[in-house]
């Protein structure tokens, strides 16, 4: 199991050092600094073995988090724990920075004592932790016996992510379907790979212990229902359903029920959390198509023409569009003409950046540039990195639709109809590249 956990600043100074196991000594702290943080080369692996001691590290801005062990631990678990640690810290004091860590080091030690026992991760849900680890540190004294046992049963219980007795005057929930669409396209317009990775994020402000059921246009569910119901409806809805390659759920979702019935039922944590992640690869709506044309005119000049076409309903508007056209390292000057938006050559980034604020569906726009090159004797050819694109669209490129989210709370006197529900779809570009 995890033998120790260290947090360093960018210089390699230790900010937090907590050792759980006897086989990890103080010298491990230095070994990591010397061999990883101060290493001359770029880090080649997130797992480093130094003198039979293994170091797992993740970096958040300038801060290094390192878990140390001498045993054959579950490596995936260690990384998941490090991420979780980051989440917990963020939930407590915001951004992970040197300043924040120093300001909260007592709290961090307290957290580390609670969520990692002898190197074994324990309940690390912030909802539960916040009930008894507080920055005041004295809450323990004022709790009644009932409160105490409520805390402990929540920390160890089946529903460790939600406490009892939550009350809202207005029962409300927000669902965000956030998708990032990834594309790699050949210069000829052939899709080399495309997939959507999506997340359903839920903000719940519901009283009591509500039992929720979430439904979407999952092909498997709809086909199943179609078999039972009218055939023409099945045909109709079959078109609108989507094939989900795989999905993962927050730990509140009853996985065995999903496995057997493919229904998504759960008691949600209070506040914001990620209900599910999913991935689709079929029938993706690619919101933009990039058509590049690069022509080398002699050895000192390049002509670039890029056309972008929007491919969605004309009534919808895409926002924050940015096209990034890489230029060779020996570029000496660039002249750009674009029909829409603004384009600039950024020498420091070796790219022409073309920004368009808004663009409606089924439109087309174009940029052309002349790139002057310095003659070089560098034998190495310019690698022509792909043209990348960023955007935001108000629909889900995977075609996912939320069909329902039902809320049942038997003990309290509100019903599904009383809950105010909001749904929003946002599609963003992930890695959206076209080779040129």
């Amino acid at each position: 199991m995890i033998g120790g956990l260290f947090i360093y600043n960018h210089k390699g100074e230790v900010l937090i050092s907590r050792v759980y196991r006897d086989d990890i000594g103080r010298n491990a702290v230095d070994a990591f600094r010397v061999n990883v943080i101060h290493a001359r080369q770029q880090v080649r692996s997130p797992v480093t073995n130094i003198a039979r001691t293994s170091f797992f590290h993740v970096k958040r801005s300038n801060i290094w988090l390192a878990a140390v062990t001498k045993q054959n631990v579950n490596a995936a678990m260690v990384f998941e724990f490090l991420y979780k640690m980051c989440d917990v810290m963020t939930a407590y004091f915001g951004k992970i920075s040197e300043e924040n860590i120093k300001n909260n080091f007592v709290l961090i030690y307290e957290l580390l004592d609670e969520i990692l026992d002898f190197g074994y991760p324990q309940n690390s849900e912030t909802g539960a932790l916040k009930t008894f680890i507080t920055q005041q540190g004295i809450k323990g004294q004022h709790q009644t016996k009932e409160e105490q046992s409520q805390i402990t049963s929540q920390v160890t219980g089946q529903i460790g992510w939600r406490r009892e007795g939550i009350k809202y005057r207005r029962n409300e929930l927000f669902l965000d379907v956030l998708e990032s669409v990834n594309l790699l396209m050949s210069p000829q317009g052939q899709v080399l790979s495309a997939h959507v990775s999506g997340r359903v994020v839920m903000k719940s402000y519901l009283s009591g212990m509500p039992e929720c059921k979430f439904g979407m246009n999952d092909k498997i569910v709809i086909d199943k229902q179609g078999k039972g119901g009218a055939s023409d409806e099945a045909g109709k809805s079959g078109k609108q359903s989507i094939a989900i390659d795989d999905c993962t759920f927050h730990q509140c979702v009853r996985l065995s029920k999903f496995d057997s019935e493919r229904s998504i039922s759960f008691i949600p944590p209070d506040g914001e959390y990620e209900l599910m992640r999913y991935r689709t690869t079929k029938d993706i709506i690619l919101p933009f198509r990039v058509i590049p044309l690069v022509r080398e005119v002699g050895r000192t000049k390049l002509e670039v023409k890029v056309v972008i076409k929007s491919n969605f309903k004309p009534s919808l508007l895409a926002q924050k569009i940015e096209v990034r056209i890489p230029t060779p390292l020996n570029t000496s000057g660039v002249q750009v003409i674009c029909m829409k938006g603004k384009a600039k050559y950024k020498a420091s980034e070796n790219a022409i950046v073309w920004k368009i604020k808004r663009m409606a569906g089924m439109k087309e726009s174009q940029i052309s540039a002349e790139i002057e090159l310095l003659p070089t004797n560098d034998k190495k050819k310019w690698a022509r990195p792909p043209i990348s694109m960023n955007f935001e669209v108000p629909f889900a490129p995977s075609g996912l639709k939320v069909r329902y989210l039902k809320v049942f709370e038997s003990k309290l006197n509100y019903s599904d109809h009383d809950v105010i529900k909001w749904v929003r779809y946002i599609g963003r570009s992930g890695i959206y590249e076209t080779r040129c």
Partner: protein
Amino acid sequence: MTDSKYFTTTKKGEIFELKAELNSDKKEKKKEAVKKVIASMTVGKDVSALFPDVVNCMQTDNLELKKLVYLYLMNYAKSQPDMAIMAVNTFVKDCEDPNPLIRALAVRTMGCIRVDKITEYLCEPLRKCLKDEDPYVRKTAAVCVAKLHDINAQLVEDQGFLDTLKDLISDSNPMVVANAVAALSEIAESHPNSNLLDLNPQTINKLLTALNECTEWGQIFILDCLANYTPRDDRESQSICERVTPRLSHANSAVVLSAVKVLMKFMEMLPKDLDYYGTLLKKLAPPLVTLLSAEPELQYVALRNINLIVQRRPEILKHEMKVFFVKYNDPIYVKLEKLDIMIRLASQANIAQVLAELKEYATEVDVDFVRKAVRAIGRCAIKVEQSAERCVSTLLDLIQTKVNYVVQEAIVVIKDIFRKYPNKYESVIATLCENLDSLDEPEARAAMIWIVGEYAERIDNADELLESFLEGFHDESTQVQLQLLTAIVKLFLKKPTETQELVQQVLSLATQDSDNPDLRDRGYIYWRLLSTDPVAAKEVVLAEKPLISEETDLIEPTLLEELICHIGTLASVYHKPPSAFVEGSRGVQHKRLPGSAGSGESVDSPDTVSAAGVSEAPPAVIPSQGDLLGDLLNLDLTPPTTSGPPPVPSSGMQMGAMDLLGGGLDSLMGDESEPPPIPLRTDTPQSPQLSHQSPSPPDYSPTELGGDLGGSPAMGAAFGAPPAVMPASFSAPVSGGLDDLFDLGGGVGMPMGAYSPPKTIWLPAMKAKGLEISGTFARRAGVIQMEMTLTNKAMSVMTDFAIQFNRNSFGLAPAGPLQVLTPLSPNQTIEVALPLSTVGPVMKMEPLSNLQVAVKNNIDVFYFSCQYPISMLFVEDGKMERQVFLATWKDIPNDNEAQFQIKDCHLNSDAASNKLQGSNVFTIAKRTVEGQDMLYQSMKLTNGIWVLAELRVQAGNPNYTISLKCRAPEVSQCVFQSYEAILKN
């Protein structure tokens, strides 16, 4: 005010100030001071001097302050054990606190203080906490048992905590169950043979129930524990799989990977024709792909594991090639891993896409990545024959870029392509030769030289090219030198007329001017060959090479099986067994996949063995580079070791290279020990003439020569026999080297103890396609072992060893798999000890001690039979009570008595008794009647048969008389033979 100020105190005399503040009356000031102490401790300052002052702050009702003091205690208690006792009272008191959080905190902290005196006081509170009414306290106490066990294992056992911990597996709270499982698993690791985690269907059921309810971390503990269970049959296996599969949708990647581990392992037991088996395979792919959208560090862990999974079950991800395409901004460690998997998944169906990608990658910036991409193109060519041509042309395009490292890497892989498809792509040689000057890496130079030598007859100026390399011969690395030597000899054999001078030059450079034993020895071998029998030389040096096989860099199957059992863990990230990086006893047990359905039962006839062998034969493996050293014919692609003998693999195996000269020179040196009629000549040998018309000697069949080069006595004789031309410098240094070689090779000492016959050849190489097995049986520390020496006398690498016995008289069966961890390369010898059990199926054999064995490797299945001395089966508790002996002796009918004579034995009765005792033949009484010693002895066989003996020894008479009485008189003959063997050795 913020807490960061505590990090900035650097004043001198700070300790004194802190001391004063710690003893202050004001609570706030005290707390501030403790914070400062902890901050100093964090940055590595020694604040142990403040121990008593900090401990004084422990008596407080401020929880935050208390926790800080505890933190300090955990760090420094060990250095101040006497003072740490001061804290005990507070702990014991806190363990009784009404607040469960405080109780848990106390027991948690106490377990972290590694001071013996404190642990004594810990026992009582811990016992209470393990039975606490509050689950939070119980789950903390469960982990505390593991802590205590780490400090004092004996104490934990004596106090009966292990049983309490086992009870917690049935706790009503899922988190308590999970922590108890984690603690027990850890404790069990340090007691490999204990049955601590008594996994049976009932406990498994409890674990599976808890699995649905506990935290993500608890699910990981439980899944990792489940993976150690071996289901009784395929139905149980399937039902567990069914209950584990829902975990594949968990958001936590570690839960997913641990579930994959359980499924991969239990799947082995499912019959392949089962519908469920196919469903399961399909279910595994999507979660594995999803892992690739996790954070980069987790992607890395996932990719390393997918690499293993793809090797074990390629069918799972065969359609998912695209997800492994490299993204422009993937971290380099993710890129390199993806590349590996892309090659593993490459097939005829997707090769066009893969090649296009690889070509793209070859133009990236990162040198390592580009090199690997180029190498990958070569591997595709070898793997997918249809794509070879396209790969070659892609490589040529890349060579045209003139980027130095791309060119070099391309040449190295083209050499492999030539070996796979000889005489197909030679048209590219001209292009390669254009880049001769830019090659500065040994591997690339060696590859180029090999190409020139191999195709010398097609390259007009091959001699010029090779000569140009020869100029700086001594500055080259060993790899290049060896290659150059071989290439020039090849050239000479192909174009003898123009190249005599060149070959003489290189031979003299290699033998007289070089200190490198490998180079020198190879030089001499060529020299002798060329001067004695040029025809033979031609057949040796230009022999047809075995083709290289398609899959490269595969992990050796037994290791792969072990790593599959460790999916998700560090072992699977390093691709090494835990014993390679974990110290001490932990994790040293080798895990194995359970046998597939049906194979758990005994094998009735050898036919079944062969069927199993054929169905799962994986592709052959190109040996890792070091193993090629012995391959005189060919590629010296060893890492550049400059001098000294080649590195001995840590497993203690002999390496092919040592054998290369060992066997041959043995007889050579033997000849020289008599006054050797060797002409002392320091000049170069007469230029050998190629006499094409003379028929080659009949005993030189080309294939045999090629295969036997390493250490075959025939070769040695051929070397030593003719009055050869031998420079004076030969004998002295080589014999020195030889001693070393034999020291390394022959260092396997036999510990004294039970008698074990010398090894005999059980399976001659001729009958087993080059695999020679000699062996014996031994009983060591109560364990019957089959000790074997496997020698690879074939030309190709052998892998995938497995062994099985036919039914036999005493139910002998392998207790574990045959441990041949690395591929056995040509001329390599390996010692294997196979522990045997006696619980296998029984069938009476004729003779009684006959054992029929089937050995499988990647080439075929071979059968042989051998006989074991029955003394192997004499158990340690075979000493009978005197009275029982007398009664039994009388009880067994006289018809069962057998009498034998042991001739020519010169031991006295005591010495004989001692000797026999070593093999578990126990002397119960001794009587002397008229100068004749009568020894009454008993022994017990593994199957419970008692044998009673009366041994009569007369002083001065070398002949013993032995009477054996046994209820199963059939064994008497065998027992007698063992007696004879034991006494005479």
